[in-house]
């Protein structure tokens, strides 16, 4: 009798816990969520995130507030997320470069293993571009030949990552380049359009010039050829074994419960099929929408970090340590 009672108690307790656990999992989210953007208001990440938040709000049945935490190329937001303990209620929507190359090029308080990558939803379209009427035309091969004969050919860089890539290429091809720093597409565009600089890195600005042809693409930095410039080869096709593809991912702290991650992933997957999200991504910021589940995106990011490390070693340390 006693045993039976105890047994019942244990059983019911177990059931209660089980039910409670299930309820918790099913109920996420039970309060408003915060989508953190690591860039200032008005950039392409911010614009996209605001639409994403609207779509997620409907999918999750809770308000999703967008908060900008600009600084350090998205790094400030990640540093704060790494310390977040609210189990997926706060998540960051950002670019992969912040988490892959960020910790390699600057001192950071976080690393790749501090987060879970819920999903990748957009593919970056970064590229190496040039202007109209250049002596080398608009093919990568001709540029390399031209630069080999003309020491002092100029390149405008924007990020630590593209600087490393171009230094690696310069080393391999024996180029003597003048690498000028510039900030963002707004700083790069006048240099390319006026002809002051021969070729440059572009995060996405060139997509806006696809129709006028004023900014031809020499090399795609994405995994595949660019949507708007199908004629330009990728890094791999040109013979450089580098995967620098930029992916826009949603990230949560590493100890976020599985159930929460799954629920977020479900909502994100629905967002990638939502017309509004597709419109803002493919028509306003001109990047293709994609769907990369947690496992796939995490593996890709891990491979990229390994690749960058190998590249840095080959270059003999960080570009700035020369």
């Amino acid at each position, binding site marked *: 009798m006693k045993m039976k009672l105890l047994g019942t108690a244990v059983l019911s307790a177990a059931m209660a816990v089980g039910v409670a656990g299930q309820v918790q999992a099913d109920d996420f989210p039970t309060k408003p969520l915060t989508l953190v953007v690591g860039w*200032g*208001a*008005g*950039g392409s990440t*911010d*614009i996209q995130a*605001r639409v994403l938040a609207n779509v997620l709000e409907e999918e999750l049945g809770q308000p999703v507030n967008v*908060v*900008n*935490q*600009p*600084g*350090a*190329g998205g*790094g*400030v937001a990640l*540093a*704060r997320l790494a310390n977040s303990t609210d189990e997926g209620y706060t998540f960051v929507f950002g670019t992969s470069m912040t988490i892959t190359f960020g910790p390699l*090029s*600057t*001192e*950071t*308080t976080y690393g790749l293993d501090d987060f879970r990558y819920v999903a990748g939803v957009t593919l970056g379209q970064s590229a190496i571009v040039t202007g109209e009427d250049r002596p080398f035309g608009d093919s990568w091969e001709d540029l390399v030949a031209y630069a080999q004969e003309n020491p*002092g050919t*100029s390149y405008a860089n924007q990020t*630590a990552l593209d*600087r490393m890539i171009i230094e690696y290429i310069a080393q391999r091809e024996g180029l003597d380049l*003048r*690498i*000028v*720093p*510039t*900030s963002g*597409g*707004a*700083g790069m*565009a*006048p*240099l390319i*359009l*006026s002809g*002051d*600089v021969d070729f440059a890195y572009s995060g996405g600005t060139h997509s*806006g010039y696809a129709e006028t042809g004023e900014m031809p693409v020499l090399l795609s930095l994405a995994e595949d050829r660019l949507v708007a410039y199908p004629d330009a080869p990728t890094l791999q096709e040109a013979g450089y074994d580098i995967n620098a593809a930029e992916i826009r991912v949603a990230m949560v702290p590493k100890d976020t419960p599985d159930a929460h991650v799954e629920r977020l992933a479900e909502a994100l997957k629905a967002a990638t099929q939502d017309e509004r999200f597709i419109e803002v991504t493919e028509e*306003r910021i001109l990047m293709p929408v994609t769907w990369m589940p947690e496992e796939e995106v995490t593996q890709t990011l891990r491979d990229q970090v390994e690749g960058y490390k190998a590249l840095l070693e080959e270059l003999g340390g960080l*570009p*700035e340590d020369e």
Partner: protein
Amino acid sequence: MIGFDAILNSFAAALHYESIAIILGGVLLGYIVGVIPGLNRAVAIAIAIPLTFYMSAYAAIAFLIGLSKGTAAGSAVSAILLNTPGEPSSAATCLDGYPMASSGKPRKALKVGLLASVIGDLLATLLLIAVAIPFASVALKFGPYELAAILIFALVFIAGMAGGSFLKGLAAGGMGVILGTVGLDPETGAMRLTFGFAELMEGVPILPLVIGTLALAEMFVQLDEYRRNKDASVIKLGKNADDDLSYQEFKGTLPTIFKSTGVGAFVGALPGLGPSVGAFMAYGLAKRSAKDPDSFGKGNPNGIAAAEASDNAVIPASYIPLFGLGIPGSVSAALLVGAFMIHGIQVGPLMLRDHPEMLFTLFSGMIVASLLMLAVGWYGLRIFARVTSVPPHIVISVVIFLCLAGIQVQGYGTFGLVTVFVFAIFGYFLKKFDYSFVTFLVAFIVTPMLEMNLRQSVILSGGEFSILLERPIALAFVVFTVLMVLHLGWTSYRRWMQARHKAKQV
């Protein structure tokens, strides 16, 4: 190039009732902000920018421009009625406005101020439309060499023109330069003066710096003054028959208004000088060229007209370098850049080509804003005057709240709040010891741009000075800068000699 039809279409868009309502909202809000002592334009724009997230690009910019124009006109009201400029640039308006108002003619003073404001603003807007477009089409000729040379010139020019002690100007500018270099080195990625704060990697955030040094510090100064003088006298609008503006009197101020608009437009077109300098320069010019210079400071309508026309002309003129070159000519122009960015528009040389319709709709919106300003000011004189009788302790606490809320809204977090307070204290002492915060701010804003362009120039040219011979515009500005330095050096040397001479005689 954009066709004439498109220009007409953009004007039609600005005359749509929805656009008019939005611009009116901006002008009204700006006017109120302008009237309230201590609340200024830059803060109003900074606080309003997040409000515009959910507006269309055109509505947002039109709203902000209406706001910006409204503040310039509104600030004259409190300058005239309370002797407290609603805007630092209206300090010159107090000089004649307050004496006229206290001699029983407040309505006349307000009307002179309003008409001068609107005319100055409208003429400078037309100038912007005429000048910014041809300017923008040659803007691609302004490469890193030219921009670096112009920025150096601007820095020297501002340091020389900002007034006050030469050494104090140099110190304030130096502080700005040092703070402007904080963050990652653009070329090597090395950390400079970040002291381990990831938040500083992209430089000292501009908004907390601006709100701290301009708004919060001003509140501290006001608080200080309020503590000493708790009852500022309020002038009631009288029923004096002499208290109205006759057509003859208005006509008499027109030459001053035109001249001062010219001064304001010139000052506005040069990056960084700002409306305060414009207003004081125009006031000085009007006084010097008047037949009766002694009547200035005692309620001369020309004094009010000069200060207000110039103050208001600076605002649209400061958009000439903004739209033509991407260089913000004033703090509020710099804040507008952010507002454009939110709506995906890169302000600068390429704007005319990439967003011509936006540019023309904007221009027409600016003209509409000028006219609405006249209507708002004319019918609202009495009502707006009452806003100034809100007790300062309420104004000050509300403003401090708004400043901090603005930082929080922008997502700067605790770090932003700390930054604001640090710069509030810093700004308080700048003001107290009469260091030019104009020079400080301009140096801070110009430094990162100057550094980037200078380094680009050095790398691209391979460090050869002879590149200047191929770039005549850059060469010209380098020569101007050298001449300016020589001139500044010579005048301060002469002043020093005179002072020494006098000291000997005593």
